[in-house]
């Protein structure tokens, strides 16, 4: 029986919120890092120029806005939304314009005394939470224009032009890069969540399909038996085939209730896994699997032939034994290297001296296993049941 965990269903492990939180932390880090780069130049900035109070105000506003933006990111567990981004941009533009007064022209690039330029770049990088491309474009465009106004006075000769162009291209290059990168991360996270939900739905549908298969035929048979029971004819007139089918369906329901590993489609080389896999193919048998002593027992090239032999033995049990209990036991031998697999049924049994083995036992079991050094013993008593033991002694 498949049971989905929270992690598998995605209820507690959605990727999108985690991606948004990571991006929010990135923006918070970006703003705090910019602030950290600004602060060593604070004293120098206050010491120069004649607008000391206004300069102090711009530094205070920039610091407060950077800290507030970082706090918003941490609290919301995502980057700032559109409203905050507009406010952030407006403040940055205001700082650039005030910088025209407070920052000498020669200090507007290449110096943290004129922090406005780098600050506006960090604001542009913080706009990744605005996912409407038109709004984002307008905000970045506003910042680029304000930054152009701030740095254009630098140009006094032709040699200054590349510096200004480079300043503006930095923002025009990095801001879109961050925005598209974040968009890609968010899309990947969203795809992961949708895939997880899809896998959970498939698993749930598969579980429902297995449940329906387990009870469908059984329900129909019970209806037949109940109908006949109402007529008082259950014991004497119910066709024996109906009872045989009823037993088969009962075993199928028991196998579903017992759960266990699903079929993987290839032969494992761990002996315990191999017998567990084979058991899943015989859910119509009243099969108990006892693999505990075989865990970690590694098979070599004999795995495929062993699996074929076990299937052949269990098909024989299905067709001939009429068993109410079948036990498939696997073990690593206790006193000598090697392993053994035992298939026991409590069915009709047979006289081993008088019975000629069919193709299944003779060819698929005895002939194919002996080249691997696997010995097959069959012990059966009419009325008691049959035990087939496959033993491989010695190191592989």
């Amino acid at each position, binding site marked *: 029986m498949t049971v989905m965990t929270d992690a598998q269903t995605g209820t507690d492990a959605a990727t999108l919120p985690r991606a948004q939180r990571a991006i929010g932390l990135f923006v918070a880090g970006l703003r705090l890092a910019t602030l950290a780069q600004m602060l060593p130049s604070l004293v120098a900035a206050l010491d120069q120029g004649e607008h000391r109070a206004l300069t102090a105000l711009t530094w205070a506003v920039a610091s407060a806005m950077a800290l507030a933006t970082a706090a918003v990111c941490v609290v919301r567990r995502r980057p700032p939304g559109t409203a905050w981004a507009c406010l952030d941009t407006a403040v940055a533009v205001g700082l650039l314009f005030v910088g025209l007064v407070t920052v000498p022209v020669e200090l507007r690039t290449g110096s943290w005394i004129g922090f406005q330029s780098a600050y506006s770049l960090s604001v542009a990088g913080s706009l990744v939470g605005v996912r409407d491309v038109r709004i984002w474009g307008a905000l970045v465009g506003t910042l680029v224009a304000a930054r152009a106004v701030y740095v254009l006075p630098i140009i006094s000769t032709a040699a200054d032009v590349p510096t200004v162009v480079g300043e503006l291209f930095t923002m025009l290059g990095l801001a879109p890069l961050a925005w598209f990168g974040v968009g890609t991360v968010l899309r990947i996270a969203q795809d992961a969540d949708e895939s997880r939900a899809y896998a959970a739905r498939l698993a749930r549908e598969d579980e429902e399909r297995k449940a329906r298969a387990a009870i469908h035929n059984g329900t129909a048979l019970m209806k037949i038996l109940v109908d006949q029971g109402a007529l008082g004819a259950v014991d004497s007139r119910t066709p024996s085939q109906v009872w045989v089918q009823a037993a088969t369906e009962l075993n199928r329901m028991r196998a579903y209730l017992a759960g266990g590993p699903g079929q993987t489609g290839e032969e494992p080389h761990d002996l315990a896994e191999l017998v567990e896999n084979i058991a899943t193919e015989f859910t119509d048998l009243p099969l108990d699997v*006892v693999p505990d002593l075989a865990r970690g027992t590694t098979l070599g090239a004999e795995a495929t032939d062993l699996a074929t032999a076990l299937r052949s033995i269990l098909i024989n049990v299905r067709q001939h034994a009429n068993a*109410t209990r079948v036990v498939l036991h696997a073990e690593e031998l206790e006193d000598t290297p090697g392993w053994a697999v035992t298939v026991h049924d409590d069915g009709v049994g047979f006289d081993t001296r008088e019975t000629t083995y069919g193709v299944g036992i003779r060819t698929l079991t005895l002939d194919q296993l002996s080249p691997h050094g696997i010995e097959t013993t069959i012990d059966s008593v009419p009325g008691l049941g049959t035990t087939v033991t496959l033993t491989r002694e010695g190191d592989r």
Partner: protein
Amino acid sequence: MTDPDQSSDVRFSLVDDATAVRESLAVLLPDLTFVSSHPSLEDFLAAAPRADVVILDLHLVNLRQPDAAQGVAAIHAAVDAGYRVCVYTQEERRFVLASCLAAGATGVVSKSSTLAETRTAFLAVSRGELVAPPSVTGLIEALVRRGRVTVLNKRQREVLAGRARGLTYAELSRTLYLSESTLRGYWRDLSGVVSSYLQDSSPGDIERALGLGPGDLVDHWPTRSAADDLD
């Protein structure tokens, strides 16, 4: 020689929330003496019938009794009240069934067993014999093989190995050249040792012994707090 299957004067009481099971089991097993039947363990404990074995369904909660005790808590409570417990259930998961033994049940019997098998199993439990399907017996064999249960002698280990492979006493008798009653005696002796080990060991010990991952048994394994919840 005593017939191991004789019902004698063993008194059974049945606790099952399914009315059909309560009403029919005594009819289907006419030579067993059922002194009472109850829809819940609380009802059973209040009545305190004079029974030797309580046949206990594992799942007792339903719409009529949503707060009924069930599972290992119910087993603990019945054992603490002085009853020998045989769990009678549709539950097939072997770790869950093993946890019933760890909680103090003497046997676990599947409701899908034939009436003959069920009768034999109930009587075996009344004699104090551990009754479990081969899948659970295989777990016990693994614990013995890995030295966790150490006081078993050679014959007891042979009987355990045979039972884990699904062999009946009749089949074991042929291969070990011992009478069925002797084999039952070996099984009865090892039942006590195994029951004590299961009840005294932590899930972690058993996980390590069986090579399971940490926590694989915790969801199933009984704790005393489970029983306390009933108080």
